């Protein structure tokens, strides 16, 4: 059982929350980080005050200079709704002429810069609003909440979790994770039957590695998870944000979709009379990359491709690898760009931050020659060399997997067909797509590969505002969180 790290430490990833704003950040002492969009809402924090504090703590922002704050732990944070006093009965006398606030925006900013706390600023603002006292309590609260978001000065630092990462991505832009909403992701995890102690495989693309990270979180330190990826790099952004220990990362291995081992059509071995009573629970850890059993997959690979595959499997030198990384216009690079935007920018050490990106790549290579990464405070990203990853992944897939997940924004059906043969009969598969149409097609196609008990579903997710006398469903909702097709594979 891995020891859960409950304290904010140098080098770990944290999630900084201010109101509805949420962003990840890797903490190093002495650095400061800029959050929010340029303009009024932007602020820069030195997070040293958080080091050693437990995750989930709240902090007061103390102004150091113009937009620069240090933080101090708050012992008993309260959500201050107490500015709202007994309001007018209704808004019959309210004039919406846009001139109800006597303070100009500039004056408000000046107030802020004078060092008034957020709460004090809000108090001044409401006092200077000619209409505030005439608003209904309901409107008053809306007003205060709005202002609080703008001028409030409390942050909370969370441990990165799947819940919060999904929340962050979805709030930033649902398309960043292919519109994979929390409810859909949650169901995907359940229907895949992912758990500690089994072999699982996931193909993920276009969702920041969130699905892989979520599966890994459900597996702990026991079992094997193979991420099948396409393009130049694995999809692991969210994995890197989860502060997984090396022990946890050992569960995960990567393999390019072009390097998949040939699928033993396990089904054909036992089709008609499955009476072998041998308990094969513990399958052997064979490292063979080519299997000897007959191939009966729907799409047999031709020999040319096999050769190419083998060629690519040979270890490549660090140098050529790096060249590949930097020259290729891969999707991965695009996502890294996204990620740079995502990670808050280090104000003072911007170059260093970029260097950090590079050094991560170097990490991967130096590990190959057995060296330790240069920055011990930043954990190793890759616990295996690429060759080891491929070998491990092949071995796991050949043993057979107990759950298959495909989540991508491309056409998922070919991938499903490619991976289904590795799935043990009797076990579950789940496919996510932002569109219903490919899954409808897959619904009938997968049946020929042994798919049964299949369901195609979408979910409705509704948030509620629960407040005394003001309870109602949230005013806005997501129009759709993607579609799932799930089922079980059986022997034909």
């Amino acid at each position, binding site marked *: 059982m891995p020891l859960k790290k409950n304290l904010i430490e140098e080098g770990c990833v944290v999630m900084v929350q201010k109101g509805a704003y949420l962003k990840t950040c890797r903490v190093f002492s002495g650095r400061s980080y800029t959050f929010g969009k340029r303009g009024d809402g932007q602020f820069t924090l030195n997070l040293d005050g958080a080091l050693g504090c437990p995750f989930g703590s709240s902090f007061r922002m103390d102004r150091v200079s113009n937009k620069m704050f240090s933080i101090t732990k708050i012992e008993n944070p309260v959500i201050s709704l107490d500015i709202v006093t007994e309001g007018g009965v209704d808004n019959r006398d309210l004039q919406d002429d846009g001139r109800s606030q006597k303070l100009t925006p500039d004056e408000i900013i000046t107030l802020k810069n004078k060092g008034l706390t957020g709460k004090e600023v809000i108090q001044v603002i409401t006092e200077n609003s000619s209409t505030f006292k005439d608003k209904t309590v309901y409107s008053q609260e809306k007003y205060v909440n709005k202002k609080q978001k703008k001028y409030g000065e409390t942050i909370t630092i969370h441990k990165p979790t799947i819940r919060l990462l999904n929340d962050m991505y979805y709030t930033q832009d649902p398309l960043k994770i*292919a519109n994979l909403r929390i409810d859909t992701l949650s169901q995907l995890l359940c229907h895949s039957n992912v758990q500690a102690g089994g072999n699982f495989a996931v193909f993920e693309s276009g969702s920041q590695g969130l699905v892989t990270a979520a599966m890994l979180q459900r597996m702990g330190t026991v079992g094997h998870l193979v991420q099948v990826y396409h393009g130049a790099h694995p999809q692991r952004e969210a994995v890197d944000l989860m502060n997984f220990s090396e022990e946890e990362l050992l569960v995960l291995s990567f393999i390019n979709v072009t390097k998949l081992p040939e699928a033993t059509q396990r089904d054909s071995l036992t089709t008609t009379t499955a009476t072998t009573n041998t308990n094969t629970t513990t399958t052997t850890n064979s490292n063979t990359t080519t299997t000897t059993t007959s191939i009966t997959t729907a799409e047999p690979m031709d020999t040319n491709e096999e050769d190419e595959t083998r060629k690519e499997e040979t270890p490549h030198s660090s140098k050529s690898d790096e060249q590949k990384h930097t020259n290729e216009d891969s999707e991965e690079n695009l996502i890294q760009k996204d990620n740079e935007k995502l990670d808050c920018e280090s104000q003072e050490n911007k170059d260093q931050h970029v260097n950090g990106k590079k050094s991560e790549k170097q990490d991967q290579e130096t590990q190959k020659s057995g060296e330790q990464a240069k920055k011990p405070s930043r954990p190793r990203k890759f616990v295996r060399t690429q060759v080891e990853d491929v070998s491990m992944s092949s071995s796991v897939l050949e043993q057979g997997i107990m759950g298959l997940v495909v989540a991508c924004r491309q056409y998922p059906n070919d991938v499903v067909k490619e991976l289904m043969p590795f799935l043990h009969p009797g076990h579950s598969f789940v496919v996510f797509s932002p569109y219903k149409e490919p899954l409808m097609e897959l619904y009938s196609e997968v049946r020929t590969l042994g798919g049964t008990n299949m369901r195609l579903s979408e979910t409705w997710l509704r948030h509620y505002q629960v407040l005394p006398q003001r309870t109602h469903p949230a005013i*806005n909702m*997501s129009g759709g969180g993607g579609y799932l097709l799930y089922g079980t594979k059986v022997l034909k």
Partner: protein
Amino acid sequence: MSFSGFKEVIEEGDTVILYIGVSQIYALEVKPKVINKNGQGVDNVFQTKYGSVKVMDLVGKKYGSRVNLSKGWGQVLYPTPELWTITLPHRTQILYTPDISMVLTQLEIGPGSIVCEAGTGSGSLSHAILRAIGANGKLHTFDFHKERVKVASEEFIRHGFGDRVIVLHRDVCDEGFGVEGVADAVFLDLPKPWDALPHAVSAIKTSGGRICSFSPCIEQVARTCEVLQSLGLQELLTLECLAREFQVKSISLPRVINGQKAPTHQNTHVSQEEKQPDLKKKKVEECVEGAGSDTNTKSDEHEQIAAGNKGQQGNGDFRFTTGITQLKMPGHTGFLTFASVPPGLARNKLSCVA
């Protein structure tokens, strides 16, 4: 005048709908002068993203025809309460068509109906009621906000509904509706509808009628239902309706494995992604050229999911037409509670409650 009847050609005094795109729809009043911010009368020239239009130039044009703007074009649609709802000046939060349409059906409003409405608000529902009751019906509409009553009243007259509507400045919770036993239906959109309910029942015909209350919060609904029940009303029904719109899009999904495991294909895919910004730029240009086309700029971002659905496409791409849901849609407007006043309901009860 155009709301209350039908005509083919635009005349001075009409309110017309200028359609440029799904998110650019405007109601224009066809009159020579408008008052600007400084209180001066100036020529009625309407500015759009695609240039301006002299509104009086519309006179004599047929409804449904194309209108040239300085940098594009639009179309003039016949005004309907539904188009008005999405173009009207908001003086309050308003009801939208999914709720409005349900109110009309559930309140069983038709030509000749006599309806009471409180409050008038921005007149979004009022317009739909005024269409439904026809020339022989009557809408009594009330608002406790004086300015809103004045503006709404003038608006109804301009829209040709003057004969069928009575707009009053009145707090119906305190003062009641001022009419008794005349209404077929009563609609309430009030912070405390329970205070108005006994008056609403009084306003309903002795032969019975229908009542609706719209409230955003569930606590209001709970109290409303309790009072409705205590007043002896029947067929209580609370519901909520939400429209979910789809954008019709042709999608082309790239394949990861193209029958053969060809890594070269992946590059094709990636270059498509990079083309997206250009595509968007081009799209905007298209808008300028053909403003009136249904270029749905609202959620172009959604296409990004498709990983380059309109760019250079792989040969084996999976292509299909789909209805894309909005990323963000209205999640709640309010709860609609309906009830029937049975015939001959004893109204002496009311005084004790009120």
